[in-house]
């Protein structure tokens, strides 16, 4: 099946996800062969959420670019970047399709990831693959999530959904993407503290689940709790999951000040264990 936008044509592939407001399909942009995701509103009622989501992705892209420019002027090293833009999807285009009963469609792509199917929700690793991450793998995932939450929240965006179904991982190159902005809201000054804390808690709960733990009972797999030196790490995660931390910048700083005492900085291949 082909979907035509005012500017492009997309060959639509298999459905990969759905929620109350929209459905998600793999698609390929005709002509250049770029692989993307096609998000279509379930009905006209869902158009607003997709419009807002598209607008917010544009706003975040502009903000990431501004910060990148400021950083480049300060650091003057072309090999260094902040990399915020890798933490959310690129909006290729957004349009209302008359041939699809007036429903809005967002075409999304992942920066630096050519194959969208390589991006996997945390929930799928847990539930479908039956895997759990080792602690060091969880550390780079959690670190990147906190960095992105600090970025979105300081940009006045409450993402709304930061659970295991809306955080995607690319495990080869270590990309972590906040994916679902359909419930995101813009705040004219700052995102209220309770919302910031809730997002941090929700995302941390997803990471705890990925490790094989339970944020409510505080239980973790035996091999995790067996090593004394990792106890502060587990405690920090539980603290972040409790909803007490309302500042992602602070959380990010505290997180790395602890993580740097546990592991050396450097590339660590994603490591998953059977549950």
């Amino acid at each position, binding site marked *: 099946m082909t979907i035509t936008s005012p500017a492009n044509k997309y060959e639509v592939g298999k459905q990969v996800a759905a929620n109350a407001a929209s459905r998600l399909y793999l698609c390929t942009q005709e002509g250049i062969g770029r692989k993307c995701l096609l998000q279509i509103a379930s009905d006209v009622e869902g*158009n*607003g959420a997709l*419009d*807002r989501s598209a607008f917010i992705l544009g706003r975040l892209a502009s903000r990431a670019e501004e910060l990148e420019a400021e950083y480049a002027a300060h650091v003057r090293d072309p090999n260094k970047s902040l990399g915020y833009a890798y933490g959310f999807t690129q909006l290729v285009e957004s349009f209302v399709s008359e041939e699809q009963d007036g429903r809005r469609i967002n075409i999304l792509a992942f920066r630096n990831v050519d194959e969208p199917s390589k991006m996997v929700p945390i929930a799928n690793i847990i539930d479908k693959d039956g895997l759990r991450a080792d602690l060091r793998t969880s550390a780079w995932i959690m670190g990147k999530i906190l960095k992105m939450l600090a970025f979105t929240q300081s940009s006045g965006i409450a993402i709304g959904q930061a659970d295991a179904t809306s955080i995607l991982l690319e495990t080869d190159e270590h990309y972590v993407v906040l994916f679902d902005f359909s419930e995101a809201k813009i705040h004219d000054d700052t995102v209220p503290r309770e919302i910031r804390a809730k997002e941090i808690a929700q995302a941390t709960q997803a990471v705890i689940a990925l490790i094989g733990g339970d944020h409510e009972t505080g239980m973790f797999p035996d091999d995790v709790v067996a090593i004394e030196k990792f106890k502060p790490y587990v405690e920090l995660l539980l603290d972040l999951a409790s909803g007490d931390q309302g500042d992602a910048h602070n959380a990010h700083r505290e997180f790395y000040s602890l993580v740097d005492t546990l592991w050396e900085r450097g590339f660590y291949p994603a490591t998953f264990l059977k549950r």
Partner: protein
Amino acid sequence: MARNKGVMSRADYTAATSAHVPQNGPSTARAEKEARRTGKLDPLVDPAGYGLIRRSLIRFNPRPDKLWEVAVGFPVPIEDHLDTTGSMGDNVDRALKILPDTADMVHSVLPGCDPQHAIGIFGDTEDRFFVICRPQFEMDAEKIVKQLTLMVPERGGQGNGKEDPQYGLFAAAYLTASYANRIGLKGYDFAISDEPVCNYVDARQLQRVFGDELYDKLKENGHEISARKLPDTKEIVSVLLKRTHAFFLQVDDRRDTTASWSEVYGRERVVALPSVELLPHVKTVIIGLTEGTLSLTSAKKFLRDHEVGSGDARRIIDSVANIPIGAQAALPNFKKRPKKGDLFKSKTDLWPIDANELSEEPEAGKKAKKGSRGSNNWL
């Protein structure tokens, strides 16, 4: 210039202002003087006037075959409640000045529709004469301009930390009858102020504003309300939201004002209005987003094209980004809205007659189609 029925022209506006607006002083000067003399409002803007209930109906042209033809399009009632207290005391003059822009811009996001404007004002219950003025829904410059000049803003407000728009909201919620509501669609309602809203209505003030007929008229319009058990402002707005897409447009950025109106409307319906001069722009963006004729991206372009400064544009977009986008377009009968040229059997019918119904009307000398299903077509 030829008059295009249904679209307010600038020529009509100029003619109307020449006819009704005094050359010096406030546009409402004559009405204010008259009101001070008589203690009464002109019935056109008196909330107790003309049977209390304000109506937004389809405009029809009669046809020789006794059918009624939709003259302009689907009627969309748009009611404003303008604060005229303190620093906002000259809001009627501002509303008059921006009326052509309001009409043009709003029309641009309501294609095929018949926008019907009711621009009212409010003050404070402690004001000496009038708490609100509520006009009729009108479409033509002549009538809207005339009604605006009949307003009596008291420019007080009493400095008591609140104003009393809730009486206008009460009227909008319970004393409006619109065709849009009859077919399950909604109109628009905008309250504009820089002050917090009072959270209750008082029976004595209701009597003062709406007169003796109030409770009978409420009943006539489908609302059983007793003076002993009046709704509070939040309940009034919850009813208002069932029949309109309602928003509070906040001038200035006082936190207590934001908090007060957010409590009543929900935070997502409190929208920044950087200045009253930008009222046409903000209303248009809200209506366009709600109708689905603008997206957030095209709304940004709309503001840029209409020379709204980048700071104001960003503030507006940020505060409309969370409104229920596409809410009107998502309503069940949105696509079935009557359009210009549709024919009704009776002016009070809910829907136009079906095109097939028309073609099946027997005509002298017309042969019945062969093989048509259903009834026999006797020749």
